[in-house]
């Protein structure tokens, strides 16, 4: 079963490259530049991992994370220098990030999650 990952960022090019780099048999990736459809998708599909950018079009990342009711692992992505991470996130990744690191992060985090639960 592929890992279900969602990336929400209003920067279209970031979404595209995320998709191009990470989409594979192991990772089922959905990307959204608008937070509304992103929240809706997450609430319906219960992904394993959600990356949420802090600055979105109408809301900020924290508000979006709180609007997502699934028990998915949420990671804050930000280009800000000083955004405090809300407790609903398990981690924060600063922009610019390396896609290779993201890939490792996905596999490691999901493995970690699956280990104690199994």
């Amino acid at each position: 079963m592929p890992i279900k990952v969602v990336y929400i960022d209003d920067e279209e090019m970031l979404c595209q490259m995320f998709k191009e780099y990470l989409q594979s048999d192991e990772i089922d990736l959905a990307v959204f530049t608008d937070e509304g459809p992103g929240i809706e998708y997450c609430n319906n599909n219960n992904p394993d991992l959600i990356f949420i950018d802090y600055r979105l079009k109408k809301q900020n990342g924290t508000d979006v994370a709180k609007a997502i009711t699934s028990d998915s692992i949420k990671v804050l992505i930000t280009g800000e220098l000083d955004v405090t991470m809300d407790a609903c996130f398990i981690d924060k990744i600063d922009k610019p990030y390396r896609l290779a690191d993201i890939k490792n992060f996905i596999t490691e985090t999901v493995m970690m999650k699956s280990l104690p639960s199994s």
Partner: protein
Amino acid sequence: MPSKIEQSIYEKFFNLSIDMLCIANTKGYFKTVNPSFTQVLGYSEEELLSAPIFDFLHPDDVDKTAQELAKLSSGLDSLFFENRYRHKNNHYLTFSWNGYIDGDSGLIYAVARDITKQVKVRNKLQHLQRALAQETIYAETDLTGVITNVNDNFCEISGYSKEELIGNTHKLINSDHHPASFFAEIWRKISSGKIWSGAIKNRKKNGEYYFVQSILVPIFDNNEKISNYIAIRQDITDKVNSEHDRLKALEILSETSSAAKIGGWEMDVATSKLTWTNETFRILDVEQVDGLSPMLPEGLQLFVETDQPIIEKAVQRAIEFGESYGLELQARTPKGEIKWIYTSGKANYKKGKIETISGTIQDIHQRKITEIKYNQERQKSIMNAKFAALGELSASVAHEINNPLGVISGYAELLQLTNKSASPEDILTKSAIILKSCDRITHIVKSLKKFSRSDEAIQHTVCSVKNLISEAIVLTRAKLKLCIIDLRCEYIEDSNILCNEIEIEQVIVNLINNAIDALSELPDKWIDILVTETTQDYIISITDAGLTIPIEKQLSIFEPFFTTKNTGEGTGLGLSIVKGILDNHGAKISIDNNNKNTCFVIHFPKIKNTDSKD
């Protein structure tokens, strides 16, 4: 019967006598007159004998002369009787008569003397006496100082009656103001026959004081011995009081100038001699030596070396051209202390020539030191504010840079990942995306660089208001986005102004940032930027959703260190810097009170003498 010799003696006596001798009858006719009569009155003997005596009299003296004749006729002697006779030339002469009637013959024998001159002197004395009695405070004392006579004025001013004064000495009105030696000196002088004059303070009966200018005169008898003294006095109480007031005013002035630390000085152009007030000596800490005046070169040397040429030139120009000056300089006191002073000078003309230069000298050391410190602090604070603004800007711009940086990094990774499988088109597309992101970063960095370079020499260039606002928005976009604020702009396309573009951009960024901060708590967040124009100005209005600033605060918001933000959120220098920059550009910033929202309005003057495009 007298012998012939005797008769001749009597005739001689009669004819040669300087006194006027005559014999008259009781009917009022001269029977005999001696030659003196004709000499004194100018009439011939015949003229005098042919007319009644009354015809020669002054009309006013006819009655009393008739009475005197009647007195003589009744057998009484007449002594020192005076009346006036008309001279042939029609002027009157005063005669003093002694006469008696000879009972046997019924004839009057009389001797007259022309006393016209004496009467004139006597009248003059009488008038003087009357004037003294009426117009002065008059008193007479005996040799021991006991008052023997006073006039009403004396009684009036002293408050004592004549009865109280006469028989007393002047001790009665002694004020105890003068020492005993003062009166001893007066006595020494007048008892030696000299006149004393001077001012004396006396006491009235009711205890009040009065001042008199006194002339004390010793009066001599026929043996040239002092018989008594007279005192003529004038009330000078008002004068003394006004003099006292004047001195008091001077004293107050001196105290005031001392408190205000303002001294005065004057220089005689011809001699270069300086006259200083006490306070000037005090300010410059120069020892005051009686009778010694400082000279101009000494005065100039009291300034520090660097300031000496400045004051020297100013004084020189005042002397030569009458130019006034006011300078803030550093003086070095003789004790070596450096002191900030303000000194002014102006030329004073007399008959068209500059005769003196005068002015003030003020100790401004405390104020100046405070001012210098304040300016240093202010400079420091402005620097801090700039750093703070730059820090804030960097934080929000970081996001704008990190996003394209993320794109660059990501696409580079993709290119690495697909280095063998990628098609040339794929590589081109990806590298184009990378380059585009680089451009985005470059643009932001350029704006930042420009923004931070505000310390360079001010260069005013022609800039479009539209571009200035666009650039400012680039720099604030990140923050606007973070706070999710809706920014709307309406420009005029052709809107060139002459300005230091970095500074004006700084102004707009500052105002936008202020608006953003003001909106943080509001549900409805928007900022409107509107550019309009009048014939003279471009008007930039920056309105945000916040309520307008209360009028009582409007005056102070442009002051340095005024802030409505919480501690740590703002330096309070933003708007003062904004105003300072706009002032330097001849532009004005105000708050539009007709707007229910917060609306800052900048009136920026259009470029004058622009090339006409029509």
